[in-house]
């Protein structure tokens, strides 16, 4: 009965042995494990699955997803760092295990800048600062003015301590010299509920969950964190446009392999993802998830990782983000 179906389905997630050094020319001669650092259904996992499907179609070997969620991606990152660099194990994930964890986690078992081989960034999304219906400010300037007049009184929710939403808000506070009261939640849904119910005034989070409510007029879009405005909310100005010069923060998702992976295999995967991301179908698919395709080169990805880590260091020094 269905117990058997289960085991078959579950079995696809079981690690496949990846021993021996493969010759790049033969790659891939067997199935490839794609580690997904977050649980099924979340944005990071959906991207990993989309990329695994396109690589399966491109190379004619199965790219099998293995979900290894936990400790903000640190378990998945550790697993990749311990894997053989033979091209049969890669990791596709949001940026925490690829960069931020190096600064925000004290006992990280690997160094993302040393133990990983960058392949490419796949997609990115801005974060969105939104305000409840009865919030004391509807623009970033009003928010800064209000916070200066009422120090420490501005409540701003984020989807978890050390998440991108928290970091984006902490940078706004640091650069504009205001004191914000950061309130961490367990993910977006409870944060959105409290914003809709007016229990909290502001939230800084990925936009997708908030868009329908902004269109409905129940909450307000205050600012987007990327360098450019976003298509879904053309009237909402960027943080930079509202006075914080050069402010540009995005959530991004990328693919990496273990240290010492063959440049030929890196380049083969990079080109396959690039080729796919140029198609309108791929762009429509990513847009439906609130994302933009940004496939770049391994060197550009290395720079993204470095930039992310360097942004965090002053926040940790100022005590705004506490490593754990």
């Amino acid at each position, binding site marked *: *009965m*269905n*117990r058997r179906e*289960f085991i078959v*389905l*579950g079995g696809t997630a*079981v690690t496949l042995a990846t021993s021996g050094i493969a010759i790049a020319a033969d790659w891939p001669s067997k199935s490839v494990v794609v580690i997904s650092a977050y*649980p*099924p*259904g*979340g944005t990071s996992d*959906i991207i990993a*699955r989309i990329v695994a499907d396109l690589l399966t179609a491109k190379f004619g070997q199965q790219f099998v*997803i*293995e*979900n*290894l*969620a*936990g*400790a903000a991606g*640190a*378990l998945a990152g*550790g697993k990749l760092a311990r894997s053989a660099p033979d091209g049969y194990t890669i990791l596709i994930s949001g940026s925490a295990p690829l960069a931020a964890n190096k600064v*925000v986690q004290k*006992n990280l*078992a690997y160094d993302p800048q040393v133990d990983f081989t960058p392949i490419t960034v796949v997609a990115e999304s801005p974060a969105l600062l939104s305000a409840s219906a009865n919030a004391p400010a509807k623009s970033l300037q009003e928010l800064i003015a209000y916070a200066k007049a009422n120090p*420490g*009184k501005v*409540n701003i929710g984020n989807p*978890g*301590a*050390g998440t991108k939403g928290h970091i984006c808000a902490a940078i706004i506070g640091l650069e504009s010299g205001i004191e914000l*009261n950061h*309130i*961490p*939640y*367990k*993910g977006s*849904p*409870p944060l*959105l*509920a*409290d914003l*809709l*119910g007016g*229990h*909290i005034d502001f939230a800084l989070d990925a936009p*997708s*969950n908030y*868009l*329908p*409510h902004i*269109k*409905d007029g*129940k909450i307000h879009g205050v600012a987007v964190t990327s360098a450019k405005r976003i298509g879904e909310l053309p009237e909402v100005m960027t943080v930079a446009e509202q006075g914080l010069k050069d402010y540009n923060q995005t959530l991004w998702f990328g693919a990496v392999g273990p240290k010492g992976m063959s440049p030929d295999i890196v380049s083969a995967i990079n080109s396959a993802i690039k080729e796919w991301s140029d198609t309108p179908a791929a762009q429509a698919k990513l847009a*439906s*998830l609130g994302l933009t395709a940004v496939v770049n080169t391994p060197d550009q990805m290395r720079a993204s990782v470095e930039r992310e880590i360097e942004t965090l260091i002053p926040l940790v020094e100022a005590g705004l983000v*506490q*490593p*754990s």
Partner: protein
Amino acid sequence: MDIFNGLLLGLSTATTLTNFAYCFFGVFLGTAVGVLPGLGPIATISMLLPFTFGLPVDTGLIMLAGIFYGSQYGGSTTAILMNIPGEASSVVTTLDGHEMAKQGKAGRALAAAAIGSFFAGTVGTLFIAVSAPLLASLALTFGPTEYFALIVLGLVTSMVLTSGSLLTAFGMALFGVVLGMIGTDVNSGAARFTFDSVNLLDGLDFVVVATGIFGLGDVLANLENERSRTATVAPVSSLFPTADDWRRMTAPILRGTGIGVLLGVLPGAGVLLASFSAYALEKKISKHPEQFGKGAIEGVAAPEAANNAAAQTCFIPMLTLGLPGTATMALMIGALVVQGIQPGPEILTQQPALFWGLVVSMWLGNLMLLFLNLPLVGLWAKLISVPYHFLFPVICVFVAIGVYSINNSVFDVYMMALFGVLGYFFKKVGAEPAPLILAMILGPMAEEYLRRALLISHGDATVFFSSPLSLGTLVVAFLLLLSIVSPRFRKVREEGLQDAD
């Protein structure tokens, strides 16, 4: 669109051959994973989620929903027969359900659970159709302060659940709170009680602890008297509820349904709070509170009705606001988002076929479950007369698979074994584990909401008394606490315990 047209549209969506077939597949699978100890709906839905990406969105959601409420039916089966709660919400079902099974009334307990669930499911579905949009906005008035008060009430009621010593129950609840604190602190990100182990950073999973303490602990205890055990289980008497059973369970089912329907709407602990609030209420108003924990059919019917009603109505905040009340609901949102549908206030106008189709399919699914489960009652009840030396290895294998499947983690299997030993110890010293499990879930929630409420109010604790909802709930909790420790109540309890001796 009015309700009548909506239901017609839903009927035409839900009765297409594909949707009907996937609804059946979903509830069948749900029953099966509910029956298998350890393997719960969250693990099942996570595994099947990628499979739904290739299905039409309504079909996929209908199937996933079927797995979810189907497992609420199936979960009671292991709780009653083997004392293993598959889901947090069936913890209280073990208290009287397993006692009934030991007395040879397994069939009657299972039938009471199935009938209660079906009635509650029907009412819950109807309730969604009538009042979904209205209730969703009502649920938003619950902020951190109100949730905190509700959870305090939950923690207090968890101690009413036991039949043993109050001090032991309090100690077990306290231990549960400590277990719940293991892992990364939400507010500061600091690691607590993790002993530098990466495996503990995300805390202990409820299923790991519950299957260890209840499931393995029970296996260990049963093996102690394996030869004489057959004598302790009375032969299966009647399979179906007697006239007296019907009389005793009708009102509890009605009350359980009411509690479940209302609490299910609250995002957060809806289903869990519903099942044990219903149990606590029945015990409180019963003329024979001393029978609870010793095989009272009210103690099975009411929480089972409540958890199934809540399993239906917890779709309301998910569908109408995009707010998942449980981890399972979060996965369903994932299933919708992948297909380009953002659950939210516009879903009723933009996706009427999806909304009404799901509502109607839930009722059809509940009907299927009744026909699936009632004939099986005889079969399940026979399971308990299988010689234990055949049964216990199977239980061990399934709980190990179930626990492993949550995170693909061998560490979790070791943890379960450890809690199995602990469960055996609790049994030996006569400490009931139900308050521990509930406190382990509710403790961290209480902390999270307390700290959030205080952060938002800038440290002003009077917010808990200035909100009428919160004040009212806290007063009820206080009165309940007073009644537990009052001499009169203690006397009733002690008399009850003496009767049992």
